[in-house]
């Protein structure tokens, strides 16, 4: 069977680009090593650029958000397991909202934090499920009516994105998402430019969800109101109590 060529590209770890990991072979630099990086003893005065300040500030922000997320994990999970049941989701979100209120942040930091969390080897991000709730808390606390998050290029799929998305907020997410996307939506507008897994829009009480790609099973499970639109393939519709579910132009659940 023909293999997907792009799987082979994944074998290059970012660390392969790290000149520090190169080795000397037979007294010569290996091809992986840029010999010009050896000139670290250049004593000439380097110009300080605003870039240095921007990067320092960015690093500090990421550290602050990572610490906050670690606090959330410590409080909600500790040494145990995190399970996506209703009670746990609600209590975790409550703590996340509290944490969000205690730190300084801007919406532009949040997308950078997403990328940072998905790429980081920090132990704080070994438990990824509450991250969707953490990010949802930021979105709901934002004063921006239009939020755009780009999660393309990451293998991991975030779950629980768009939880309780409130009215007057449009959240656009580019990239694939995991389970329980847009659950308990509170009137917001969630646009997903990618695919989602199961339980899309479960328990939503208003608003609109649009998915440009595929969606898994149990779409709109226990939804009360609102609309879900799926343009790709769908795995199956759940037991909705209200609202409407559309597959492309066709309504497949609900009343016109």
């Amino acid at each position, binding site marked *: 069977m023909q293999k997907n060529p792009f799987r082979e590209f994944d074998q290059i770890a970012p660390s392969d680009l790290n000149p520090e990991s190169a080795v000397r072979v037979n007294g010569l630099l290996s091809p992986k090593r840029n010999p010009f990086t050896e000139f670290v003893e250049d004593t000439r005065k380097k110009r300080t*650029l605003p870039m240095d300040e921007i990067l320092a500030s960015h690093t500090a922000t990421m550290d602050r958000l990572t610490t906050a997320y670690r606090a959330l994990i410590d409080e909600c999970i500790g040494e145990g397991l995190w399970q996506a049941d209703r009670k746990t989701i609600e209590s975790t979100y409550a703590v996340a909202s509290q944490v969000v209120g205690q730190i300084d942040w801007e919406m532009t930091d949040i997308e950078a934090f997403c990328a940072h969390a998905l790429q980081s080897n920090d132990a704080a991000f070994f438990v990824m499920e509450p991250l969707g709730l953490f990010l949802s808390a930021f979105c709901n606390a934002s004063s921006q009516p239009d939020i755009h998050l780009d999660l393309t290029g990451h293998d991991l799929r975030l779950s629980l994105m768009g939880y309780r998305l409130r009215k007057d907020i449009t959240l656009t997410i580019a990239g694939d998402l995991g389970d329980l996307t847009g659950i308990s939506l509170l009137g917001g507008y969630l646009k997903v430019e990618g695919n989602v897994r199961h339980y899309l829009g479960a328990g939503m009480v208003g608003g609109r969800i649009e998915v440009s790609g595929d969606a898994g099973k149990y779409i709109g499970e226990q939804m009360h109101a609102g609309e879900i639109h799926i343009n790709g393939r769908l795995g199956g519709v759940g037991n909705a109590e209200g609202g409407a579910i559309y597959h492309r132009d066709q309504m497949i659940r609900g009343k016109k």
Partner: protein
Amino acid sequence: MNFNDIIQRVWPSVRKRHLFPELPTPEVIETGDETASIQMTDKVIQLNANRLTALAQVMDIEDATTALLDHGVGHHTVCPWDFETHLKLYAALKPVLLDGALVKQVVEYFSDIVVDTHAVRERESKLPEVYRHAESSEVTDVIRALYQRLWGENLGVEDRGEVDRLARIPYLDASQWGDSLRSFAQVIAPLIEKEMGDGNGQGGMMGDVQQYSAGELAEGMAQFAEQGFYAFREMVRDFADELQDANMMPDMGRGKGTPSDADLLFYMARASAFRLPVQTMPLEKVGGLHPHSHSPWEIGKPVQHIDVWTSFGRVMPGISQMWNWRDGETHGDGDGIPDCVVIVDSSGSMVDPGREISHAVLGAGCAADAYLRRGKRVAVYNFSDAQAGGKEVLDFSRDRKRVFFALCRYFGGGTALHLPDLEPLLKNHVDIFLITDMQITNLDSLMQFLIQKENRVTAVHVAQNRDAQRFRQRAAAADHICVYAVERTEDIPDIVLSEVKTRFQAI
């Protein structure tokens, strides 16, 4: 205005600021890509005369020249530095963006930013002045706005929303280039895509930099071949123009069963990674004397050694010149390594090297490479149903491309050898490598044929079957035939190479 004089004036100071990189003196070119300010061919930085003339109207020409040179040198010393790093950057982005042309443009813009920021920060470059007068376009304006933010210089461009995200990327941290490039692409790729759609995409702000030597390209490809068959094929497709310009593409024509250039390059690159160390042949005395140099003739020295042509026709001490004679040295009469014939089965039961990696072809390529590197010639007999025309016969050759082309052909169909084809190849005690699954219609005739010969034969069969068993039993009585049964096809190259090594050591 003589730009070459200006280059001669500023080049020493540019080299000094960049810690004396080993680069030849740059040139000015009148023609070439009109949109590019700078090109690099075979390590020679080439500045576009039209661009320099335009810059001379708005800034000091020496500053403009040094700034452009800073950029060119930066590509050589900082990013991407070599083709292998370039391919790694490409590979980090390819699975995300998929479109090869787009990936290459994003990588070019990214490496431009790394190089420019490095030059401004650490090499006191005048590049900001050049960018202040850069031509406007959607992508260029975003990058100029980014430079404005990163460098703290007014480049006369409006701030852009995209810069908020771009400015957070640590461009100068090489250990994070993979992640940084992906973050960069999230913002910049849609803009580049739009420009490409409008027919304006050019890639990089300074021009397309063809900076790699043929050796660097070969080394980079050999390293990248380890990535895998399919990734390599994608890469060759995406870099076809660059490889063509560097004369790296095999370009062996088209026909039934003909391997694609990408497949051929893959097997050539992969085989070179399995290389055996080549032992150089020592110089040896050949016994004869030859006239080596002149010295003045003195009384008492043999008259017959006087060189009449340089002695003005006279025999006078101190004026006449005599020859000094030396022992002749040569590489000798070779090391006794014979040429090699590789017989490879490309019938339907074998893996098509153009569809997935064929370890049989790779093993054959490794054997061929080992002999070619020793200066020996290799012949190829690639067969399926040879009697019905399903065969490729390459006479003894030192042309690596032709050898691999013959090895990589795939015919499919039945399996039978036409032994009269082999007869002329097996003269002079050549070594024979036979790689097959042994499901050969005329196997008995082949066995009889090989047993009668005195050539050393290494037969590698890639499947366990009754025919293979029969071959092993018959070959057991013949000392010059060695049979290897292979459980895993991946082991073929190693088996072939260890056999070749044993032969070289035995000589």
